[in-house]
């Protein structure tokens, strides 16, 4: 049993190493590509614009629920005036980066893994190689760079909408004074909190997009089945691995930041 566990652990570490090298090669490959701006624009649209509605919606409902839950907890201690602090800090430090990353993985990451898997099976990736075009730089590089821009931006949007959601339930529905709510938000959030949230968003972006792209790109090597089932397996594993990695990385980064 210990041997099996050890072998699995080594496998995970080895795969993380492969994913890191894959991501680095893709970023390096991107900078020798032609038409970089147009490729980056397409990738920003894929990751940023298309994920905006789901991130905004989830942000709003998270804020609404947090406003409710935290209000009824704080009111027991007569501390409902601290609602703004509790909502803002929870969102900016933890929930914003984590939930945004999970939403983007669900929307863009799974699509990316499937698309790359199909391109692998259909020999489109081989076709790029025969044209002397670096497939990693062409297909994965722009998406990784887009993640660097989009994840922090989407996280910021999630945080803002979430804080507004907290205001809706806390102040509009449950009568916490609006001035107190916003004043607490303003006073309690420091630059360190925002910076920590952005660092997390950046790391999650690079990790999740690398994992999803790696899974799709290597469908022919990593999936247990060929063809469509292999693509579906790659997409599923991409989402599962990315989600677990986000949560594990969140713990590690938080322990360094605190």
């Amino acid at each position, binding site marked *: 049993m210990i041997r099996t566990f050890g072998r699995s652990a080594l496998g995970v570490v080895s795969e993380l190493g492969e994913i890191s090298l894959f991501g680095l090669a893709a970023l390096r490959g991107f900078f020798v590509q032609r038409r970089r701006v147009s490729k980056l624009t397409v990738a920003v649209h894929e990751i940023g614009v298309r994920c905006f509605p789901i991130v905004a919606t989830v942000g709003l409902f998270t804020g609404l629920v947090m406003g409710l839950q935290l209000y009824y907890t704080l009111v027991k201690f007569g501390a409902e005036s601290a609602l703004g602090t509790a909502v803002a800090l929870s969102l900016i430090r933890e929930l914003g980066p984590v939930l945004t990353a999970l939403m983007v993985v669900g929307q863009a990451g799974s699509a990316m893994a499937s698309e790359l898997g199909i391109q692998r099976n259909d020999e489109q990736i*081989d076709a790029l*190689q*025969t*044209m002397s*075009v670096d497939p990693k730089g062409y297909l994965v590089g722009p998406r990784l760079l887009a993640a660097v821009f989009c994840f922090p931006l989407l996280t910021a949007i999630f945080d803002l909408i979430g804080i507004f959601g907290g205001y809706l339930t806390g102040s509009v529905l449950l009568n916490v004074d609006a001035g107190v709510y916003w004043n607490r938000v303003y006073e309690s959030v420091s630059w360190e909190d925002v910076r920590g949230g952005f660092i997390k968003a950046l790391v999650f972006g690079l990790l999740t997009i690398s994992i999803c792209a790696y899974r799709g790109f290597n469908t022919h090597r990593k999936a247990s089945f060929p063809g469509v089932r292999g693509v579906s397996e790659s997409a599923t594993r991409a989402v599962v691995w990315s989600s677990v990695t986000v949560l594990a990385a969140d713990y590690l980064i938080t322990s360094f930041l605190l």
Partner: protein
Amino acid sequence: MDTFLKIRGLKKHFGETRVLDGVDLEVARASVTTIIGKSGIGKSVLLKCIANLLTPDAGEIELAGKSIARSRRGSKAQDGVSFSYMFQNNALFDSLTAFENIALPLLEASHLKKAEIRDKVEAMLKHLELQDSATRYPGELSGGMKKRVALARALITNPQVVLFDEPTTGLDPERKFSVFEMIADYRERFGFTALLVSHDIPEVFEISDRVAWLDGGVIKFFGKPSELDADVESALSGFLSKANYGRSKQLNTEGNGI
């Protein structure tokens, strides 16, 4: 003979299956060599080894005197020799139009200006009677049209070596003939060296300078198409008769066909 492509002792296995078991082949500059053989015998594997998409287990491949078999997979080992690959399943990019698919190698790996690229692609579209399909996506094209788009993409860079993997599969006899004519015409105009895998026997012999019969992992016959009639192994005769070679030849002679 001015040898342009030389293969010595090429071996490739997948698991327990030995697909190539010591292939030796010499292809003359600006010639058309057709590889024939049963389905699944390793013809496409041979082409992929030459294109550096698969790494051989043993053996040497020399292109214009430079070894490519030992170089890194997917690297620009063919530097100095431009080559194209026409894939069996076309490998067209679903998200690009026919025009964009054909222009892709020029946009990504040439120093031509946009206007020059547009002119070249338009000329190619006209030559292949694809003008009306320029703005259509591969999903909107018929099988024959897709083949012609793939052929156009393979020839647009005026490569020195073109590897054709079953370029006429799925085409009607008229289109099949026009594709063979086009390969012969382009070879005449641009002087590329072509290596062709085809099951269209005997039509393909009309444009072939040499025929290589791959069987049991080795080249068992290599010579001019006219030499197929005499001094051939009985196994090759059997293969050719199953491919309707004798009957088709007789019909062609009587009907003055291809």
